[in-house]
């Protein structure tokens, strides 16, 4: 296959490291730099995944590797003004705003506002300088480097979202994180390195909002680590709307402790090739995990969602619902893996993947996968693929609704199962709007 591209991509990214290192100034002494240097070794050795790799069977990354992206730290891109970001924000509710441009913290654009004592919300670079002890034990501790994309992120990790909520703290307002990505002359590689630590009995809600500005190609390669300590509740929203020319890869690695709850919402609109890996490890008992996903694709988009829940301990439950709407020549991939380990008795694990194909040329490859080693469990998964229901459409049209609107109604109803689980009301409506905007379909009036 594309071995040449794969190999030269490794070489290209390794060769940029020296320039990157020079830019770091005094910071090449920090603990983060050791992590980077180790990752660089991995980057030289590990290959980028090919279709021969079972986990990447349906996703061909060659188009990403054909381009020589330049890490944001050593590339040039236009400055963003404060008024320009407004259009990308979710509005009508209170939030702490933190903005990253190409993965680098943009203080002048952020309005973090007042935070309760002990709460840290900021850029990784800043936190590494000011509070190294608060993160040194956590960063790169969960995510293991298992392919060249992870190695690439880790080798160039410099900035990214850090949220630390101390024990017993409940953060009332959600944190809205805008990751604005843009390229002009250079093809920019942004490598945000995100870390969320929710201490015991704490509660936090984070909305990561990935947006593309302009229509030039860029590449977001993200790693997010989430620590959910005892009794903590974390709502993690990811809304991805990169531009249609760009590539987006994110790996989320979460660990949960006793009695904790982790809700992951994964809404995908944009990107030419998108790959999400969402992995959660249950490290103790009575844990609850919910995954909700919605992916919409049109044109030639390729959206790949890989989810994994590792039920390592007894008495936990997980619930997963992923829905896809695929139009034009787009392709969707879903792989939902659940492992129930030997000792994880009394596990309840449910998973569902439903996909609707709106055009003759859209395709879906779905693989729900259960691996169960304990006997006292209740596990199920379901997967369906189909098209909009003809009889329902006929019924709506017989009431005098035009065809296009009837279709939109059915699409909205289909997506609603996922959208409805979102806890922030204003977000729901704005997402509904984005669905129709993205699929270029007639929108339904909000008022009933």
């Amino acid at each position, binding site marked *: 296959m594309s071995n040449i591209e794969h190999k030269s991509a490794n070489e290209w990214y390794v060769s940029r490291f020296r320039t990157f290192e020079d830019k770091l100034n005094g910071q090449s002494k920090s603990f983060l730099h050791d992590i980077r240097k180790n990752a660089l070794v991995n980057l030289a050795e590990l290959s980028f995944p090919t279709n021969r790799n079972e986990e990447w069977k349906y996703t061909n990354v060659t188009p990403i590797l054909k381009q020589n992206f330049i890490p944001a730290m050593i590339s040039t891109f236009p400055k963003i003004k404060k008024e320009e970001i407004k259009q990308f924000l979710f509005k009508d509710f209170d939030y702490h705003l933190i903005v990253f441009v190409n993965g680098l913290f943009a203080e002048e654009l952020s309005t973090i506002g007042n935070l309760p004592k002990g709460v840290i919300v900021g850029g990784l670079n800043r936190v590494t300088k000011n509070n190294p002890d608060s993160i040194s034990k956590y960063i790169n501790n969960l995510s293991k480097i298992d392919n060249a994309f992870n190695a690439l992120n880790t080798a160039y990790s410099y900035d990214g979202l850090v949220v630390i909520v101390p024990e017993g703290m409940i953060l009332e307002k959600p944190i809205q994180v805008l990751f604005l990505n843009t390229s002009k002359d250079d093809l920019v590689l942004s490598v945000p390195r995100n870390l969320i630590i929710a201490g015991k009995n704490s509660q936090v809600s984070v909305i990561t909002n990935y947006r593309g500005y302009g229509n030039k190609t860029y590449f977001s390669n993200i790693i997010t680590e989430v620590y959910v300590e005892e009794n903590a509740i974390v709502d993690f929203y990811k809304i991805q709307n990169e531009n249609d020319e760009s590539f987006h890869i994110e790996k989320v690695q979460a660990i949960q402790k006793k009695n904790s709850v982790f809700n992951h919402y994964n809404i995908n609109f944009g990107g030419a090739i998108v790959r999400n890996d969402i992995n959660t490890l249950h490290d103790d008992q009575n844990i609850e995990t919910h995954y909700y996903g919605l992916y919409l694709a049109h044109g030639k988009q390729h959206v790949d969602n890989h989810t994994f829940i590792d039920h390592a301990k007894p008495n936990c439950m997980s619930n997963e619902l992923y829905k896809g709407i695929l139009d034009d020549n787009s392709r969707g991939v879903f792989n939902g893996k659940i492992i129930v380990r030997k000792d994880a008795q009394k596990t309840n694990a449910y998973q569902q993947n439903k996909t609707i194909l709106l055009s003759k040329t859209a395709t879906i490859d779905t*693989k729900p996968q259960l691996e169960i080693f304990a006997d006292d469990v209740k596990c199920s998964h379901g997967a369906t693929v189909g098209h909009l229901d003809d009889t329902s459409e006929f019924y709506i049209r017989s009431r005098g609704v035009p065809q296009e609107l009837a279709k939109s109604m059915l699409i909205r109803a289909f997506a609603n199962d996922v959208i409805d689980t979102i806890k922030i009301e204003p977000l729901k409506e704005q997402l509904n709007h984005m669905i129709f905007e993205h699929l270029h379909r007639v929108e339904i009036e909000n008022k009933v």
Partner: protein
Amino acid sequence: MNEIEEKKTISTETSSDDMKVLDDLTSSEYKWGFITDIESETAAKGLNEDVVRMISKKKNEPEWMTEWRLKAFRYWQKMEEPNWPNVHYPKINFQDISYYSAPKQKPKLNSLDEVDPELLKTFEKLGIPLGEQKLLAGVAVDAVFDSVSVATTFRESLKEKGIIFCSISEAVKEHPELIKKYLGSVVPYTDNFYASLNAAVFSDGSFVWIPKGVRCPMELSTYFRINSQDTGQFERTLIVAEEGAYVSYLEGCTAPIRDNNQLHAAVVELVTMDNAEMKYSTVQNWYPGDKEGKGGIYNFVTKRGACRGKNSKISWTQVETGSAITWKYPSCILQGDNSVGEFYSVAVTNNYQQADTGTKMIHLGKNTKSTVVSKGISAGFSNNSYRGLIKIGKNAEGSRNYTQCDSMLMSDKCGAHTFPYIEVENESSKVEHEATTSKIGEDQIFYLNQRGISTEDAVNMIVNGFCKEVFKELPMEFAVEAQKLLAISLEGSVG
């Protein structure tokens, strides 16, 4: 659906009494283990072109057949042994296997009287209705005894209808045009590692050809029996149903106790033309190894059917209780418009057995339909995987698939896994997949106990209920045998 799931999944603690009963039950020995003392002619171990030529020569095969085998062998040499299945076993030394074993002296026989009485006794022990029973059971049997057909019954009555039912080696000689046309047309010799190996060294097997418009009046059946030590059995079955024909074929197997692992790499090819229908049922009960997981048969089989014609139908039903390792995916290629593929499976693993089985449904024609019902039961230390592929091609307008795979776990040391692949390239089609995994319902056991039914009977009842959807697809005689087999395989496995 919910209600059923609920019933299956609720559980309570098992009392230690139950455990004891179960332990007693699981410890039962393999019931069909006996070795027939018949002189057999076995080739020396090892595999090379000469061995392939020798096999071909032994069977008096024509030149083109020898060439085909050699092509397959040369191709096989370049292939790598697959390692993707979810099974683990020591590497097979393909040079340490003898590739040919035939009962010595095989004169052409016309009636049962001429058959070696030793052999007949073995068949009787297995309950094969040769001799007197053949009429009662109404089953025509092409008995395969370590690779070579010994006697074929009912040939005459089938002949009247124009049906050909004989061993592949006979067919090669007597119906070369059919063999040339169909052999390897569904599973080419390049298909996979074990199919190539089979193509090179296949010993014998059955050939069935049903002419246009004929409905085969009886269930056809072959009993396989692996007998000589250390001989891998490489069966090859080819069944062709011409336009509007119908046939139901049974395959059932038992094998004696062995210490050395025996390799079995069979190939089954089915072809149905317009409006033809075929039903292929298997009960597989080969030696699964002892309680420590020692010995047992490696069963690496390639089974595939092609619905070539319009409105044709192929239905696979399998009950897999034996073998140390089972690795097979009876598949359907739905080429003809409106063709139908079905797969019903019960796979039971106990002790250290491993099974990686499932199906592939390849929808190519318009309005093709497929149904997959798979029931996996794991007990002891075993691992049971369902692996399936549903592929809807671009032109398969209005296709439909329904898949249901349920697993039942009987101990806390076993595993149940599902790896379903669904690939859809056509928006007008509909695919549904549903899977559940749960423990055997202990409240159900309790309920039955309370009515005076012993735990082992209760387990049997529940398991039979769990598998009912599949059993009802089996022909009558098989259904009874399958239920018995299931009971034996699972004796005492709830814990």
